């Protein structure tokens, strides 16, 4: 990636800022005539006679303008950032925010925020996304103007779709007369926030330091107010780098978080009445839990009704082995007479049967007359271009309110409205659901036995082996591959930090860096972080492993290596079958073989521990033990497991 610092930097602006070095470093600094060719090739510079640059440098009088400064705008920026308790700033370094970068390290002491060095902006944003979901608060990310931000965009879109707060800074040089020739023009824009405006909650380009202070606090507040999302601030280079004229006049605005709104009381009571009166109520949910209280609140509510819960797993909403967890019994949607949908991302998709055939058709999965209640914040902030809001779903009662915050009042209303006879009926319903849940668990175990010793290794065996090795740790599973659900079928996932959802936007390349971000958040708690991820996803951002090694972020990363972009392989096969031709050729362009990729070697090249490729399931346990020892010692480890597709 081109960087401003890599270009021949001949601007007067930079000459003047570097002028303090003239006396000491004149032999290497090109203060004048920077565009001139050197007198001799650089390889011979030590032996060559002084060239015109050096002669000029040694004979010119000292510059009269200032060459040192005792403060910088970046210092104030850091002072503001520190008030927001931002632990880290994930970056790929770039000259357009060098003022802020230097201030974070020297003025801020490289703590709160501490720099997390990343080798790609996509990695830096995804690390921020994974961190925020696990820590419950955002970190910052900084990128180069224009080109760095262009790299960051897909990850920002994932964060947007996932409703996760990420604070993104992008360097920019606003004043045209201050831009050096070359890269600084290529990396500047009138309105670089335009690039990401359709998938950020808010953005600004502060024109003064006080403006930055207010916009920074505002950005943080907007990002962390449900529905949460990424925000963007363009930071002018001059503003970052130049001295502060009057620090005493600069105020750091006070941050006070928004209290998430509870749904309207009358509407809550109405919903409770409908649910209590229902014969077959059902809860469907996706991103309810934004704090550890979320799961607790949902459990209490479901238990008050003895109501089944179908979880779309956008967050750690509900324990996997709770008797009311019926997530793998979607047929309940067709039996429910009242459905409460809480913080749903794709309600229509959840309540609809859709057919991906020549004629694309759909019909409701719900039974006729079923009442649908929604509770959530997501639809209170939407944009137009990108269609992540999904298809329109008719509902009967639409309650605007934060799901997690509203559940206690809803629970109380249910309890208040439930008479003894209804309570007895609820208990009876709960017993039946518990029986069904247990049958579902047993069914999963039975299914997992098929192909137990097969090679490539079944995904069920892979997940069972990993769980067997980590189950006694204080573990946290933070990533999965497409349609890999065995953890939720087989594992006892019950603590608020034991799951944190998926990418949000299904943008490939999320899983490895976001899992490392979650591991970074887990590190200070001493939790054992484990993640699964596909091989295709891995190859988008393998450099994230270097960040994990460099910053000693412990994580066990299992590569679910089916040697394909497998979902696409299946889609392409369907196309060929539809056309009655060439089904056996659909590995072209969809598989990752010839040669096979050696993920363990890649991991070792990044400074991580690497195991594999593991093709014999009976080798998994030993490889896991070795890798776990590395992780417990504080480092990242990768195990390449050659698996069957799904």
């Amino acid at each position: 990636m081109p960087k401003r610092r890599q270009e021949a930097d001949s601007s007067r602006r930079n000459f003047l800022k570097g002028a303090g070095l003239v006396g000491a470093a004149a032999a290497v600094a090109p203060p004048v005539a920077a565009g001139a060719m050197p007198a001799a090739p650089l390889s011979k510079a030590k032996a060559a006679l002084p060239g015109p640059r050096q002669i000029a440098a040694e004979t010119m009088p000292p510059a009269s303008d200032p060459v040192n400064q005792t403060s910088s705008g970046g210092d104030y920026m850091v002072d503001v950032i520190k008030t927001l308790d931002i632990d880290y700033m994930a970056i790929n370094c770039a000259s357009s925010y060098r003022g802020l970068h230097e201030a974070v390290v020297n003025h801020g002491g490289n703590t709160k925020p501490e720099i997390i060095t990343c080798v790609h902006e996509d990695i830096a944003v995804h690390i921020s996304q994974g961190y925020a979901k696990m820590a419950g608060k955002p970190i910052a990310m900084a990128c180069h103007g224009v080109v760095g931000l262009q790299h960051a965009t897909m990850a920002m879109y994932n964060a947007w779709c996932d409703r996760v707060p990420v604070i993104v800074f992008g360097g920019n040089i606003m004043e045209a007369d201050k831009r050096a020739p070359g890269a600084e023009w290529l990396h500047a824009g009138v309105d670089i926030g335009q690039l990401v405006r359709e998938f950020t909650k808010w953005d600004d380009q502060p024109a003064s330091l006080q403006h930055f202070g207010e916009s920074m606090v505002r950005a943080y507040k907007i990002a962390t107010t449900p529905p949460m999302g990424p925000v963007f601030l363009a930071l002018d280079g001059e503003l970052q780098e130049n001295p502060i004229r009057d620090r005493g006049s600069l105020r750091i605005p006070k941050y006070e978080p928004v209290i998430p709104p509870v749904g309207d009381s009358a509407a809550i009571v109405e919903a409770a009445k409908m649910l209590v009166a229902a014969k077959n109520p059902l809860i469907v949910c996706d991103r309810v839990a934004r704090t550890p209280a979320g799961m607790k609140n949902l459990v209490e509510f479901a238990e008050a009704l003895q109501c089944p819960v179908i979880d779309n797993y956008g967050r750690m909403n509900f324990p996997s082995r709770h008797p009311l967890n019926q997530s793998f019994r979607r047929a309940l949607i067709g039996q429910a007479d009242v459905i409460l949908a809480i913080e749903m991302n794709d309600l229509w998709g959840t309540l609809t049967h859709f057919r991906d055939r020549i004629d694309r058709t759909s019909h409701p999965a719900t039974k006729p007359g079923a009442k649908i209640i929604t509770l959530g914040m997501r639809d209170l902030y939407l944009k137009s271009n990108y269609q992540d809001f999904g298809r329109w779903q008719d509902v009967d009662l639409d309650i605007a309110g934060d799901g997690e915050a509203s559940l206690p009042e809803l629970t109380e209303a249910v309890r208040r409205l439930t008479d003894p006879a209804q309570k007895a009926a609820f208990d009876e319903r709960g017993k039946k659901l518990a029986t069904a849940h247990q049958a579902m668990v047993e069914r999963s175990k039975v299914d997992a036995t098929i192909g137990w010793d097969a090679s490539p290794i079944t995904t069920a065996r892979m997940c069972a082996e990993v769980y067997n090795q980590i189950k006694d740790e204080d573990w946290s599973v933070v990533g999965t591959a497409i349609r890999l659900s065995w953890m939720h079928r087989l594992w006892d996932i019950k603590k608020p930090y034991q799951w944190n959802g998926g990418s949000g936007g299904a943008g490939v390349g999320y899983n490895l860096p976001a899992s490392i971000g979650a591991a970074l958040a887990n590190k200070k708690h001493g939790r054992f972080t484990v993640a699964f991820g596909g091989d295709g996803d891995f190859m988008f951002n393998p450099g994230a492993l270097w960040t994990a090694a460099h910053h000693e972020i412990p994580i066990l990363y299992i590569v679910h290596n089916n040697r394909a972009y497998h979902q696409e392989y299946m889609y392409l096969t369907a196309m060929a079958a539809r056309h009655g031709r060439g089904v056996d050729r659909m590995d072209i362009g969809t598989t990752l073989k010839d040669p096979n990729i050696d993920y363990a070697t890649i991991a070792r090249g990044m400074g991580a521990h690497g195991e594999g490729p593991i093709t014999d399931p009976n080798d998994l346990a030993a490889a896991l033990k070795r890798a776990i020892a590395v992780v417990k010692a504080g480092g990242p480890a990768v195990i390449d497991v050659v698996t069957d597709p799904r």
Partner: protein
Amino acid sequence: MHKFKGVAVATVAAVVLGLGAQSARAQDAPQGDAANGKRIFLKEACFTCHGRVGQGGAYNGPAPILAHTGLPFDAFKGQVRNPINDMPAYSSAVLSDKDIADIYVFVHGLPGPSSPKNFPILNN
């Protein structure tokens, strides 16, 4: 989010497709070549959704377990030719009747599920 929806319906679909009814297998199951069936199963991408050992998987929705299937052959063939869900329809231009019969014999001969009691790590 459809991520787990497909798998979730797998059990239901398995029942619909008769996977739990081994005894319901038709007596008129064809004679077939299991080795050729395996070759076709892997070559024509059946494995991509159903797994190389017929353990099942997921496409847009569930891809049912086929190992030791109890599905009658006619139903099996009907699903291949004119599926009831998003499964691709395999016409005779892609799979002949004999190919389907061979695949059927192959998947029926695959070992089905076992008791998890024999696999201690499944009981954590």
